């Protein structure tokens, strides 16, 4: 039997995981057309920064901020040295970022060994009947929503956001209007890196912190970006909602394995029947309505 509270909490849990895993990848892919195959390793950097800062004695919120900062800097350095040479070369950038991912994993192993001592999950549990759920994981759903809102505000309400979107839509015109497009790309990449780092930082206490940990975010991240479609924030939100519901319902009823299979089947179905993704459907509907109104 399905317990309603279980289902709700698992939905929030899945939603948070999908959104946080995907948002950095979605921004870098959606805004810059770079498929960052080192996304998992950026997440790993965030987790390592957080765990090492925490183990050095800092409180968890400070450690999370440090993890995000480290990943942002790493993203900036890699963008300036490697990634920026590969804009407009999507296949080359895939190969390069994939190699980068391998190198980062092995570098973490060489520098810091095979695993780090864990932080431990803070905040305890909420109990209801015979069940209980980790409070921290519920809190992550709140963080995921806050991240989506913040990203929305940054990209729609700030001057940077307007320039960044102008750069994406028409780089030449934007440049002609005085936008430094190179700088826009660099900053966008840094924001994407920071959000990947945030995912790693937030999930570091809940996971085993090892060099290859990034790979466990990849399925959800890539599936969410692909099913989300062209509009970055709307797509990520919708993908988190739809895929999170499917995952929560199926894994509650039949276990984790069926939940993951369900996730992939839904992704295939979306790609087959809604080739522009979830956000594409919403935008089509919106355009039609605007046309009808006019």
């Amino acid at each position, binding site marked *: 039997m399905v317990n309603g509270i279980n289902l709700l909490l698992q939905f929030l849990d899945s939603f948070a995981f999908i959104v946080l895993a995907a948002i950095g990848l979605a921004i870098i892919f959606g805004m810059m057309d770079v498929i960052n195959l080192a996304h998992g390793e950026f997440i790993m950097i965030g987790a390592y920064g957080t765990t090492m800062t925490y183990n050095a004695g800092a409180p968890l919120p400070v450690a999370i901020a440090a993890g995000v900062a480290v990943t942002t800097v790493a993203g900036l350095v890699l963008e300036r040295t490697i990634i920026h040479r590969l804009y407009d070369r999507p296949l080359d950038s895939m190969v390069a970022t994939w190699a980068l991912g391998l190198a980062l994993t092995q570098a973490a192993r060489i520098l810091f060994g095979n695993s780090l001592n864990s932080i431990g999950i803070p905040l305890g549990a909420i109990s209801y009947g015979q069940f209980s759920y980790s409070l921290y994981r519920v809190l992550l759903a709140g963080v995921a929503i806050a991240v989506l809102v913040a990203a929305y505000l940054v990209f729609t309400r700030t001057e940077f956001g307007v320039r960044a979107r102008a750069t994406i839509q028409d780089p030449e015109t934007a440049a002609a209007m005085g936008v430094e497009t190179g700088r826009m790309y660099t900053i966008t990449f840094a924001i994407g890196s920071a959000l990947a780092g945030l995912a790693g930082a937030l999930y570091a206490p809940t996971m085993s912190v090892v060099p290859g940990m990034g790979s*466990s975010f990849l399925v959800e991240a890539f599936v969410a970006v692909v099913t989300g479609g062209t509009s970055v924030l709307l797509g990520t939100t919708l993908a988190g909602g739809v895929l999170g519901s499917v995952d929560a319902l199926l894994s509650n009823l039949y276990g984790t394995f069926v939940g993951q299979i369900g996730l992939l089947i839904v992704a295939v179905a979306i790609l087959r029947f809604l080739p522009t993704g979830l956000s594409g459907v919403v935008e089509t509907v919106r355009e039609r309505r605007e046309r009808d109104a006019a």
Partner: protein
Amino acid sequence: MSDDGVSRRRFLAGGAALAGATVAGCSGDSAAGTSTGAGGTVKLGVLEDQSGNFALVGSPKHKASLLAIEEINNDGGIMGQEIEYFDPDPQSDNQRYKELTRRMIQQENVDALWAGYSSATRETIRPTIDREDQLYFYTTQYEGGVCDKNVFAVGPTARQQLGSVLPYLVSEYGPKIYTIAADYNFGQLSADWVKVLADENDAEVVDEEFIPLSNSQFGSTINRIQEADPDFVMSMLVGANHTSFYEQKASAGLDVPIGTSTAMAQGYEHRRLNPPAMANIYAGVNYMEEVPTDRNTGDGGFVDRYYEMWPDAPYLNEEAENNYFSIYMYKKAVEQAGTFEQSEVVEALESGITYEAPEAPEGESIRLDPETHHVDHHMWVMKADDQHNVSAVEDEVIPETFLTETVGCDLTSEDEETQYTPQDYFEEAG
């Protein structure tokens, strides 16, 4: 592959070792030991993962092998011959295992080979081993059932590991069992063994869940366990992603006792995770660093010698001891045979060789079973408390009975190369 590629990899591996400062006190050259220059030499192949996914659990095996080799060499070698060894890093990559195994046998002409962590690796190289009739030691705890003339599977099997911890938990907590296991052949077969053992101990598996190896989120699994409300959980989760389960169940307040054949003894989760993630977890193992025998934790014992050679090593795990004692068993067999000739060494290994392994208490030794090439281990039930202190709650010798009694494998009279599974013999496992 060009020589250049190989040497650059070596360079990286060397860098890894240096960065970890793990080479301190190590006299062995990473590429190969030194030859005595005398007429015959003995050469051992050691293929254990020092990088990649299995590095965490594989590098203690590598280190303990080198400890055994150094001890034997300091003590005059085997029949007066210093041991040479060849130990390239297979990097947790089965394709590399395949190439390196071929190279070990055809170019390096190793006299005996220790190789591989996972069952998948063993099955990748076993055809090569069998084609070349190479003497091979597989030392990881595993699902059991390999009856192969060339293979000495000296780690404990699922029947031995689960057979130590499951009956103990049934008598302590009750008969309702919930199984969670990794979703591949090891986990599936182990779950079958839980059903067989539950049946033998008048217990019942109320539900089971198989978790994909890539999964690291356990919210729904925890809820499903709470709903089933078992007396205890049997966990055969594997790998870094699955380790997250223990932290997540502690944080969610799930405090049901857990029996396991995979946690703590291999990946030392009780050292890596914050307490109380591993509280109330019972591991059925033949060895872990905390096994309280004089040979192990006593002054100058196995643990002391290991950390003297490898001061920065994080842990001494179950499989490390298996590599260690099996190298000594090999030495005993060679000395008994009076030759390094592999077929004669195999014959000597099939004569009921025993060794005073660190897992066995004073006055006891463990015995290599001639018919099955498995070991009658001294098994321990080790419990972690809420501070992650580990202590022994039960111990006994458990022979490997699946191959001897159920299958009837007898390698001394019949030359076989088969792996048997419990489904072939037990209705409950179906």
